[in-house]
């Protein structure tokens, strides 16, 4: 229990260990811990950012999918419309063509009929003439009665 030189020995020892701890221990451990704390903070922040990015990307993907769907629907719609239109146009054209063909056919039929009529008329005229000639036995002047026969033929 005596107070003696131990007191000073302890003060010196204390100062030495303090210096040692300051120079060789504390800052190395503390610095590494600070670096790790920063690493962890950065890591957590990166994870946060990544999950935020993921959310954004998912949103964006969903949006793009929706847009694509809309666009596809639009395209299909357009295609359907166009198809209908084409069909309608084709129908219209067919109808027109048919009409035209009918008209042409009718015209041709009429023409043919006329031609046939004309031929018939001529033949009938000639026939009548021939008949009449036979009946009159050449007493009738062919040229004098031509007009008469033609009138007859036109009446057919």
């Amino acid at each position, binding site marked *: 229990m005596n*107070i*003696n*030189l*131990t007191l000073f*020995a302890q003060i010196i*020892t204390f100062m030495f260990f*303090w210096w040692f701890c*300051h120079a060789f221990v504390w800052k*190395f*451990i503390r610095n590494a811990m600070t670096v790790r704390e920063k690493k962890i903070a950065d890591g957590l922040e990166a994870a946060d950012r990544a999950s935020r990015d993921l959310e954004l990307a998912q949103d964006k993907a969903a949006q793009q999918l929706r847009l694509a769907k809309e666009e596809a629907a639009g395209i299909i719609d357009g295609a359907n419309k166009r198809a209908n239109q084409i069909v309608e146009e084709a129908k219209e054209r067919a109808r027109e063509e048919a009409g035209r063909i009918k008209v042409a056919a009718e015209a041709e039929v009429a023409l043919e009929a006329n031609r046939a009529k004309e031929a018939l008329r001529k033949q009938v005229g000639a026939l009548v003439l021939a008949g009449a000639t036979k009946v009159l036995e050449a007493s009738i002047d062919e040229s004098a009665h031509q007009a008469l026969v033609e009138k007859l033929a036109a009446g057919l």
Partner: protein
Amino acid sequence: MAGESQTTTGYIQHHLTNLTYGKLPAGYERVDHHGHVEKLETATWTMAESGAEAKAMGFMAVHVDSMAWSIGLGLLFSLLFWSVARKMHSGVPRGLQNAVEMVVEFIDNTVNEGFHHKNPTIAPLAMTIFVWILLMNTMDLIPVDVLPRVAQLITGNPHQFFKVVPTTDPNITVGMSLAVFLLIIVFSIMKKGVIGFIKELTFHPFHPSFHGIGILFAPILIVINFALESIALISKPISLGLRLFGNLYAGEMIFILIATMFGAGLALGIFAGVLQWAWAVFHILVIVLQAFVFTVLTIVYMGMAHQVEDENQFDH
């Protein structure tokens, strides 16, 4: 017990005597175990053979056991932490590094709470104090007779003195608190200057006025202030050192008293064993608490030493 013929008082005293190396004054009469008296011609540096010799050495003596354990445990702390600091990395910590980091973190938080100035030496100071005192206090948990008995077997001297708890030696605790006291003064003067430090000691708590009639009372106030402030300043290291010493000395004393019962029959021996266990469990609290109290008070004192008062408060 060290010897069968020993009395309880002798046993206790033996346990409370340090292994002392010091200078015996000239003319001192040494009495050895066989009763031979040897008168010293000149002052001699030697190991004290008895408590009386240790006392006769006075101030010129060193407690070898206290210093050995103190330095040994300080080295244990330093080298252990150094070995971790050397291999320190900021990856995933393992094993010892975890434990050391826990201590560093704990000290760092404590320092940040109590010390708000920029001084990178305070945290290492706090850690040195905390871990070192904790280790020294922990020596108290080793049964009181084990290490002295080992020392007696090694030296072959059945009366070998050997105290193993450095913090039950007031030289150790007061030595540390005196070191803290020196740091208080050094940092105070570094931060406030000599004038600022003197002002702090003399212009508080009663502020002397230098205007009008007040100037007559100024010297009296300064004297009163100085008396009060010096007492406050000096009481810091004394209370710091003696608190630690008192707690550990009392704890050690109780362990020794319990140990005296081991020689008094089987029933009492078992009872003593239970008591020793119970006291050790309780003492774990004291060990950690006292190390922590010393650390926190040191941090607070360092904070006060760094606190530069507003200059203007002395002038209005």
